[in-house]
């Protein structure tokens, strides 16, 4: 039975494949199914862990993204995962970036998909104020996600993704008022937070953002990645706030290359990835190289 008792909640999880661990934390109001295309692809290379964050999908407890790191760390202990590549999508990044900052020895690499949450920067302060203004003005989070290209070109996938997205419909903030209730406190804290110093950040990291993401916009990701030591940034064309599902093929190829480079560098610290790698190519075009 793929349930684990973690911190007074019952957490649903699945593992796929064999190899080094690769852990996926889904985004706001998502479930483990949000990663199905990645689990399908990466199980050929890594031992993948996908799970439902507390209060979502089949996991019990009350939703709490801010404290999500406790559950993932608990799952790592439960499954005796010494260290892993960890990938967070949007709200799931609170979870993974916190673990990478506080327990870097447990993290082989950090992937920040479609948001920079957990890294405090002037860009995040500015963005947080902007979110408060937009939500106050009546914008909805879904309306800002900016996946027009996906919607126009992949109707079948949009349909499926709509079905999966409604697995937590009881919990999803539909209106701007509800979103302010759910996230307003975090936005105010982030707006007022002192910027962190990430010039010694010890974990190899990859930041990925969709070019047309109107929510966690490219300038926010750029303003974060450029302050994190050694971070790579990829801005993916024709993707909104859902790169893993909207541009699956390039997302998977880019991520695989990044992970394999990190693994190679653990074996041989002198290894330098070739300039023709996808990671170096997109990083070169990102404007922070």
């Amino acid at each position, binding site marked *: 039975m793929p349930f684990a008792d973690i911190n007074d909640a019952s957490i649903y999880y699945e593992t796929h494949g064999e190899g080094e661990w690769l852990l996926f934390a889904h985004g706001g109001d998502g479930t483990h199914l949000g990663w199905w295309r990645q689990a399908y692809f990466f199980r050929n290379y890594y031992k993948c862990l996908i799970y439902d964050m507390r209060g979502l999908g089949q996991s019990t407890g009350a939703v709490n993204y801010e404290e999500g790191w406790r559950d993932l760390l608990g799952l790592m202990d439960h499954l005796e995962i010494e260290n892993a590549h960890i990938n967070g999508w949007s709200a799931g990044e609170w979870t993974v970036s916190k673990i990478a900052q506080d327990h870097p020895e447990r993290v082989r690499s950090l992937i920040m998909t479609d948001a920079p949450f957990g890294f405090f920067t002037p860009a995040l302060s500015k963005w947080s104020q902007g979110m408060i203004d937009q939500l106050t003005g009546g914008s909805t989070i879904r309306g800002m996600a900016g996946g027009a290209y996906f919607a126009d070109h992949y109707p079948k996938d949009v349909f499926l993704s709509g079905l999966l997205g409604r697995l937590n419909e009881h919990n999803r903030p539909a209106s701007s008022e509800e979103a302010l209730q759910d996230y307003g406190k975090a936005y105010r804290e982030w707006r007022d937070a002192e910027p962190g110093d990430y010039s010694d950040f010890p974990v190899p990291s990859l930041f990925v953002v969709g070019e047309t993401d109107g929510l966690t916009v490219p300038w926010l990701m750029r303003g974060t990645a450029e302050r994190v030591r050694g971070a790579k940034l990829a801005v993916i064309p024709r993707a909104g706030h859902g790169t893993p599902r909207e541009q699956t093929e390039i997302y998977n*190829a880019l991520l*695989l290359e990044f992970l394999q480079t990190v693994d190679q560098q653990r074996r041989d610290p002198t290894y330098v990835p070739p300039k023709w790698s996808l990671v170096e*190519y997109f990083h*070169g075009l990102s404007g922070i190289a």
Partner: protein
Amino acid sequence: MPIVKIDGTDLYYEVEGEGEWAIFVHGGGGTHLSWWRQVYALRDRYKCVTYDAFGSGQSGGTSDSPNGERELLGLMDHLGIEKAFLNGHSAGGSAVSKVSQLQPDRVHALIMTCCVFGFQTAALNKWAAMMLDKFSRGITIVDRVRPPDTEKNDPEMHFFNRMLGRLNSRVRPRDAESYTARFGDAYRTMRDTPPVDYSDFKVPSLFIVGEYDELQVPWLVRETADAIPGSTIVEIPDSGHGPPSEKPGTYNSVIMSFMDHHDPRNRT
């Protein structure tokens, strides 16, 4: 009817989308349809032109003595295109690289997809000699350009790509002997022509190579890119000689990033 006479020969072309002009030139054995996934993806921001090269698809003529740059320039003039993005795949690279050298002011940026043709370097000398040696030993090239497991991984796409590949069945060389007979002179010229100095080449260029390409092999593309100042190179993982059809999601993201980066509309 999208047919125009260039130098007295019919050329079939199509135009899709709105934005800056982007012209796609297919490779040997291809047609304008070889680019359908790119046109579908890029027509939201680019005015995409595809055409059947002489001797292919619905165009007239033969491809025995390729002067691809004349077809391309003729079509650009016909459509009143002052400046465009140019993308050539495989043998189509010759047309786009030559136009970029002859009339650089008419090119926003150049994309060489799995090819270096038209850039005469020491690497090309070495590669052409190697290919001639392969032909002399009876090794055909046309069936050795796909990555492992293509068919297994995506049988439907593989099936359809093969169908498109048979659109020129009448003229396509089937074995090493007929291939050598038709292109031997071109390979000998590539082998024997001294390298050209490209230090003055100004067009932003992107070289794309498939990880498993056994035709325009990675070392050839890398060494050519090294000889072209300011060029960028990227390797498409798990792809052979046809990333536009084998890995369209990855390939499209790569070229869209590059084109958007060099799009005059994005310069502020």
